[in-house]
């Protein structure tokens, strides 16, 4: 299996040193892009690769780049979204921890392609130790002339800064991230205009996930077609999956797009722990609908196949749950998270998540009332698609799918005493 992202993971951190990185083929793609390719050619290559955004939405990266206007009165920026806060996802952490220079190289190629001078890595605040790794790597890159004035004799200047977040899930949403990066309260912005037109400090901005940018050097070195050939027609390349939960070998796995999910779980990860049966899987980080064990069997790991079973590939955080799990409790946990992380901007998300949590809490105490399960489903429906940013959808979808697929776990929480049944009947 061809590795794109995890080639240097076995070095266990030695690749953080620029010499090791260069020895193992690093910065070759950068030199190729600078010396042999025009910015347009770089964008064209990325378009050819069918690389799609790895942060969750899966938007074609090349197309996103081509939305950036060529001529702009304000400076353009490249921003790396390293605010990896999605529960169940830890791929970016390892990418930055074991191979920081690959991200730097990818960002430099992107900045070259978009004609941006300054780039930012917005990193999750809890990743303070990775911030140090990145900053050391950036310092080395400045020393070697990959960053700074006149990079590789091109006469152009490139700067890279690392900015830590302060612990808000919403700041992983690209416009809220930009607000936070500008030093403001992390609220999503109104779209349109999209960041590609009006982004950071009002300038055209490309915001990409760590994994997306880290794949760029390989694409430039080996060509977009080669990358596309690794995966499926519409989802090119490979993807990192963080597999967690009740499996024998949890961890980050790089597999090509379209890889069968059951193979990932039962072969690569060694199957379900303690010989238990699989109950459910959340395939793409906590925000996506849950899928059942039967659906896992027919599910391939690419955007289209996961969508076919009614879920989303998301950020690639595969959460595996065995038969001992009460889906009600896991959903309650997620709802608590989304209530805590709702930014409070729009009504449905702010009030909806709070209400959802209140109902979950009383059901948790086995004090649910008849009709509460339907209430949960309807509340989620009122949030879905009506909120200002995708966070509202993220809070609603797990609830709805969990109720649809594991209704019995919810029904158990309803307290049917005689009086209530009578009152219910009288309705």
């Amino acid at each position: 299996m061809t590795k794109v992202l995890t080639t240097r993971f076995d070095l266990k951190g030695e690749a953080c040193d620029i010499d090791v990185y260069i020895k193992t083929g690093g910065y070759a793609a950068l030199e190729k892009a600078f010396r042999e390719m025009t910015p347009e050619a770089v964008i064209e290559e990325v378009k050819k690769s069918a690389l799609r955004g790895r942060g969750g939405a899966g938007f074609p990266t090349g197309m996103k780049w081509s939305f950036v206007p060529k001529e702009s009165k304000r400076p353009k920026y490249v921003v790396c979204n390293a605010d990896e806060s999605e529960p169940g996802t830890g791929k970016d952490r390892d990418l930055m921890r074991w191979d920081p220079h690959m991200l730097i190289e990818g960002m430099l190629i992107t900045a070259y392609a978009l004609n941006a001078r300054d780039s930012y890595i917005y990193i999750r605040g809890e990743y303070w130790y990775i911030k140090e790794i990145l900053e050391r790597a950036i310092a080395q890159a400045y020393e070697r002339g990959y960053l700074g004035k006149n990079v590789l004799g091109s006469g152009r200047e490139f700067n890279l800064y690392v900015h830590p977040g302060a612990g808000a899930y919403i700041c992983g949403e690209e416009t809220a991230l930009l607000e936070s990066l500008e030093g403001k309260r992390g609220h999503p912005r109104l779209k349109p205009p999209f960041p590609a037109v009006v982004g950071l400090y009002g300038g055209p901005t490309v915001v990409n996930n760590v994994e997306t940018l880290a794949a760029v050097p390989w694409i430039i070195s080996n060509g977009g077609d080669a990358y596309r050939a690794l995966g499926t027609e519409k989802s090119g390349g490979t993807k990192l999956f963080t597999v967690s939960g009740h499996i024998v070998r949890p961890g980050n796995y790089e597999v090509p797009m379209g890889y069968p999910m059951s193979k990932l779980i039962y072969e690569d990860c060694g199957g379900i722990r303690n010989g238990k049966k699989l109950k459910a899987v959340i395939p793409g980080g906590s925000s996506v609908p849950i899928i059942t064990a039967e659906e896992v069997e027919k599910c391939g790991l690419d955007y289209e196949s996961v969508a076919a079973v009614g879920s989303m590939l998301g950020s690639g955080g595969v959460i595996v749950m065995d038969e001992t799990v009460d889906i009600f409790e896991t959903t309650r946990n997620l709802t608590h998270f989304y209530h805590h992380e709702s930014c409070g901007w729009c009504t449905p998300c702010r009030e909806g998540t709070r209400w959802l949590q209140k109902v979950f809490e009383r059901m948790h105490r086995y004090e649910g009332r008849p009709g509460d399960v339907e209430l949960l489903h309807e509340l989620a429906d009122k949030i879905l698609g009506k909120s200002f940013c995708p966070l509202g959808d993220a809070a609603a979808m797990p609830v709805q799918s969990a109720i649809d697929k594991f209704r019995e776990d919810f029904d158990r929480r309803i307290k049917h005493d005689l009086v209530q049944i009578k009152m219910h009947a009288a309705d």
Partner: protein
Amino acid sequence: METVKLTIDGVEVTAPKGELLIEVCEMNGVYLPRFCHFRGLTPQASCRMCVVRVDKIPKLQTACTMPVADGMVVTTASDEIEDVRSGMIEFLLSNHPVDCPVCDRAGECELQDQTFGFGEDRTRSRFEDKEPTLERQISPFIYNDPQRCVTCKRCTRVCEEWMDEFAITAVNRGSHTVISSFGGWVECSDCGNCVDVCPTGTLLHVPYKYVARPWDLKQTPTICNYCSDGCSILAGTRSEQFIRAVARDGRGRTAGGINNDFLCALGRYTIDAVHSPQRIDRPMIRRGEYLVPATWDEALNFAASKLAEIKNDDGGAALGAIGAARLLNEDLFVLGKFAAETLGTPNADFYHDEDEIDTASFFRYGIPVLATQEHIQNADTIILIGSDPNEENPLTAFSIRWAVRQKSARLLMVNSMPSRLERQAERAIRVREGSEGAVVEALLAPSRIEATAAAAGVGVDDLRFVRQVLLESERVVVIFGDELKATAVEALALFETQLATPSADVATAARNAHLDALQRQVRSTNSTNKPAVNENPFTSIVAHPTLEVGAEPARTSTKFSFVPLFRYSNSLGACLIGMDASLRGGLSAQAMINGSGGGIQALYVVGEDLLGKANGDESHVRTQLGKLKLLIVQDQFMTETAKSAHVVFPSTSFAESQGTQVNNAGQVQLVRRVIPPVGQARPDWMITSSIAKLMGSDFGYQGQVRAIFKEISERVNACAGLTHNRLANEGAIQVSAAPPDSAGIDRADLLARLSAETDRINKEIEVDSSELTAKAGSRLHGRYPLQTRYSEMLKAGDGRESPVVFPA
């Protein structure tokens, strides 16, 4: 104006291009529910109430962020949309205390109205689902009950965008979001606009708390009396008590004045002066040392006989009449007529001293084109010379900020003291105190730029820049204050000819260059500092014509228009109707005081505290007044002047009498009577004409204030054709300008006088850094020595010494 055609619920309508869909719907009679949307504030799209279905777009769209486009097909009502709306209402109410019976907003609450209009009649939320929070006072004037909040953030946006104060903000996250401030106590100018725009009972006026229910209130539109901007207020009265003044009540009704939804602290919180216990409630006559209460007949007869006696003994010229510049036109006119016809004296003047704008100079060559608030809001360039509108004319400051933020207007400031408006200025020049006139000369006479720059203590480049911007601009509003002295004020008449734009192309090019530069500006990263120009793509493409939806932007016919920032609510009116002594050929108010005991034997003072205004010269004025044979005072309060009078008449406040006043834009507005007179007070004109009648001249008004205004409109050209009825129906009407004929101005002489003035400044004012210290502060409030709850509360507020803007 470019228009587009779109279909709303199957009806084809025409709308201004780029206008927001929610406004277009409203213009066409389709009201979309909203909490966060507010005309003129940046779109927020957070309440999700105004969702509509737009063809060809998969998701429901918020009408408050959607600019209309040609061929758009919009559905505003369907099962799907109604479901969303009732869902949002249910969400909002799920964490709302629903304590309407004890909420002051109940009855004029948008949450109530919209629940009634768009919500369900029952909810699935339960009491234990709510998260109770405590009500608290966050400033001397504002109560906050966070639980009632729908987080529409109108209040914070008003604070940031209208007032540029950033005093309140949303703190905490998610469902714990509350409107508060850093530190919990709000330090601001207490304008109270955040309370007015609040759709629920989250923010409440402290003085109005538990005072009345909206359905008990009688609301009368009238005009505020506190500064020369002339804002309209909705005067809320209950049981003949004036208890509330707002620009906009909870249901969004406004008085329809020039200020739309805006009102400042003074207009809002000083109204209780009307019912102050310090009001004089009956006439009084001096008996030896004491002022003794008397009946009206006694007092009027006493005054009339004394005046007649002095007129007999010393002749009419020994009598003088002084009126206050905040009196209504009718009061001043009758006073002037009384002086001329009954007393037979030319000595009648409205009180203004040399620190104020010299009205005579301003009107020397005719009535210049005066800029209304709409003109300011639509100007290309605004130049502010002297004064600080933020404190003295808050509505003008609001309009300036509006122009800069919404219309990318260029603001130039020439000032000797700091002002918060400098944040909006493209170039703010801090000149030496008293040298504002030199800048006017620099603009008119480029050859003298070195000398003027030296006099003003500023760089030559700054002055050149200001001149260049004025030359290039198409429409310029000149706003000036007291600091501009007589000659400079007179020289403003030369602006139109001396600073004419070379050509339309030059103006367009300069405008484009300015917009381009704004585009290039990297946005400030300071979170408390919103960009001066609205960055939001929707408001920048929506060329908001004015605050009025769909109207053409107001433009003046001439390049230059003026806003003299007079001190009092009717300074301009007093001058227009001829109460100015220089027009009558009599003694000025100062001259009358100085002439007391000599040429002047009796003074008839209406509504003015001569001692209070003495400017540190109080003992002199007191001595002078002591020499008088007769001092008659009509006033609302027992001022120092009233205390030394021989006879005192209680007069009505602006809330108790009908009449007209003229604001600094020359707009005549009708002041309505909202409550009956307090105590035995009578309108000033009535007292004056009663005395006149006793002295043998009947003015024939028969107690009708309209009859006085009829006479004014016949005698005063500027007011021709106006009647109280017309003013009541049409609102503010600007008096017709008679722009100065440039040929009639002796340009050389005027410039020579201006140069002499500059040279005098250059010589007399020493360059001393201490001159640059701020003198801004309590000037506006200080002019009204009224005992109001406002001033009392400012002192009382949580141990805080004084507020930021209006120290008591």
